[in-house]
């Protein structure tokens, strides 16, 4: 069988997707560490052994993300906006028109045309506010795994405010809120609202017509999607493997 490999060397995590035809055979992730190429190679071997396949069966490797040029032996380097668009479009069954990608270090909002091409896009400025970094910090300070964020966020009762201008300040704010005895659930919910406000600020007049999809690592916790919904006043769909849409898009854009 011919496998296509998509590698997304992101700022916080390296994601790998092995695709058979257009079906995702295996997907895996590892934290970014110096020597990204070696980490990516290891992740790829892990995937192949999981599928019981050999290097020879890989028909093509595409790399994307900030570190795409670091993975030298890739057949093609694709910029992550194009691959994100392709991945989201295919995984959403061709219905995605607006894709909000909350990455580790940046925030992207893409507008797609009917064939999945990028018509327009917006990216955040030189500032990490409203990106994945926010959640990682919160996880560390509240020593709660990212996985439970969605559940905890639902049972929050009280409305708390965290500023959305600077991620570094947000950290000290969270510490002071904890000191004041504010419940973890409320802080997590405030965190989601702050990111949602930041995203809607960037979206600006970009009217999210058509179906809106959210992807990128932080999208895994459902809380962000719901916070975004009441901020952007429109229905937000989340792909089932949001963290891997970019890698998947890279693999699919290798063509047949």
């Amino acid at each position, binding site marked *: 069988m011919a496998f296509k490999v998509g590698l997304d060397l992101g700022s916080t995590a390296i994601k790998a997707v092995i695709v058979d035809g257009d079906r995702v055979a295996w997907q895996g992730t590892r934290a970014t560490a110096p020597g990204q190429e070696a980490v990516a190679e290891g992740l790829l071997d892990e995937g192949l052994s999981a599928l019981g396949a050999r290097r020879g069966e890989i028909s093509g490797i595409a790399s994307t993300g900030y570190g795409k040029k670091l993975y030298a032996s890739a057949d093609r380097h694709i*910029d*992550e906006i194009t691959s994100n668009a392709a991945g989201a479009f295919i995984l959403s069954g061709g219905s995605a028109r607006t894709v909000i990608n909350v990455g580790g270090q940046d925030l992207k909002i893409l507008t797609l045309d009917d064939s999945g091409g990028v018509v327009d896009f917006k*990216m955040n400025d*030189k500032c990490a506010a409203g990106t994945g970094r926010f959640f990682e910090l919160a996880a560390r300070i509240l020593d709660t795994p990212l996985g439970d964020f969605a559940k905890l966020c639902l049972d929050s009762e009280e409305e708390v405010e965290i500023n959305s201008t600077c991620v570094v300040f947000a950290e000290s704010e969270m510490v002071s809120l904890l000191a004041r005895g504010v419940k973890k659930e409320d802080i997590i919910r405030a965190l989601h609202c702050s990111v949602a406000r930041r995203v809607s600020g960037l979206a600006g007049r970009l009217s999210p017509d058509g179906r809106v999809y959210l992807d990128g690592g932080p999208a895994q916790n459902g809380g962000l999607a719901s916070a975004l919904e009441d901020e952007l006043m429109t229905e937000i769909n989340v792909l089932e493997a949001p963290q891997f849409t970019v890698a998947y898009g890279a693999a699919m854009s290798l063509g047949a």
Partner: protein
Amino acid sequence: MVKRARKISAKTSERARSEVRKSLEALAARDDRSADFDYFMDLYGAVQTPEAVSERTGRPVVSLLCIQAPIELIHAAGFHPHKVVSGSQAMANMALQGLPALTCPMLRAVTGAAAAASDGTPGTRRWVLPTTCDWVVKFPEMLESSGAGSIRPSLHWMELPHLKDGDSGQARWLEEVFGLKKFLEGCGGKISRASLDASIRIYRDAWRALTRLAMMRQEGRIAAVWFALIAGAFFLDSPERWTKAALSVNPPPGGARSDERAHVFLAGSPIFFPNFKLLDLLEDSGVSIAADDLCSGERIFPGGVTYRDSSEFGMMSALAQRYHQGCLCPTFIDNDRRINNILSRRMASDFQGVVFHVLKGCHPYDLESLSVEAPLKERGLKFLRLETDYAAEDSQNLRTRIEAFRGTLSRR
């Protein structure tokens, strides 16, 4: 304490000089380099202190920050108008101690350079400062708070009315221009109808040379980096020599022309040597600049002054109007005709998108990039807003955005 400060400024100057050297070497290593550009590269290599510039141009120097001060008038009075600019990251960091973090990088670099060059005593340099944006207005304080000594003794303010259209604004600016004439005469300059007319013709020839270069870039016969280099060197030498050198620039055979490049219009904050980071990134990603309206590029001065009334008053009012109404700086209140310049340039050269460069900390351009986006998109132009500063580290972020933007531009 003073010894430590002097050590810091010596190290910063050394670092700044290495930046200049690295940039010049990068330019020299380009394959489309030709001997025509050497004159301009030597200018950058030389020392830029007022004394060096005045010795090179043979005229006492009047330093400017913004182009609203009519340079023909300054030239007619026997001075050399020298716009003080710097793109050096080292100098920008040097000034960091005395300035807020979010200062306009360009002025931070200029302040740093002034701080590095001075020993804290008030300089004898003559400054003419039109009150365009807040940073220019705060510039003397910035210099003082970063230990570069005060410039107030030989500083002439020009109150820039921020409403271009309307008689009161224009009348007040005309009074300011006459005020500048009085200041220059106070500094020993002599202005006559003949000297005004001669200076206007000299700078009109310079404008002819610049337009010719802009046309060559538009047709892809010279790369955007070379255009920026030549335009940026405009104030470093006498206008006649600059014009002669610029007119003798003939595109090297083959040139940077390659058809499948996408063409864009570069707007927004100015880009100064040695920081050509954005221009290099654009070129690497296969995007060439068809036209720009940076005040470091096609707008280094508002253009040839045309007048019908050739009396001294006629020429003075023509200068005042040309530098006031004709300026597209975002600090003006009624600047809504700004996008017309882009649409007009598009009639002659077909670019598909606009890259709007915003220096972090430059609020007028920051805001204008938002207000300009919708009308340009309505007219079918793609739009990319790039916010950056003089640091080289964010080139990867910029590259991603530029390549994605490149994707949305249709290949010609």
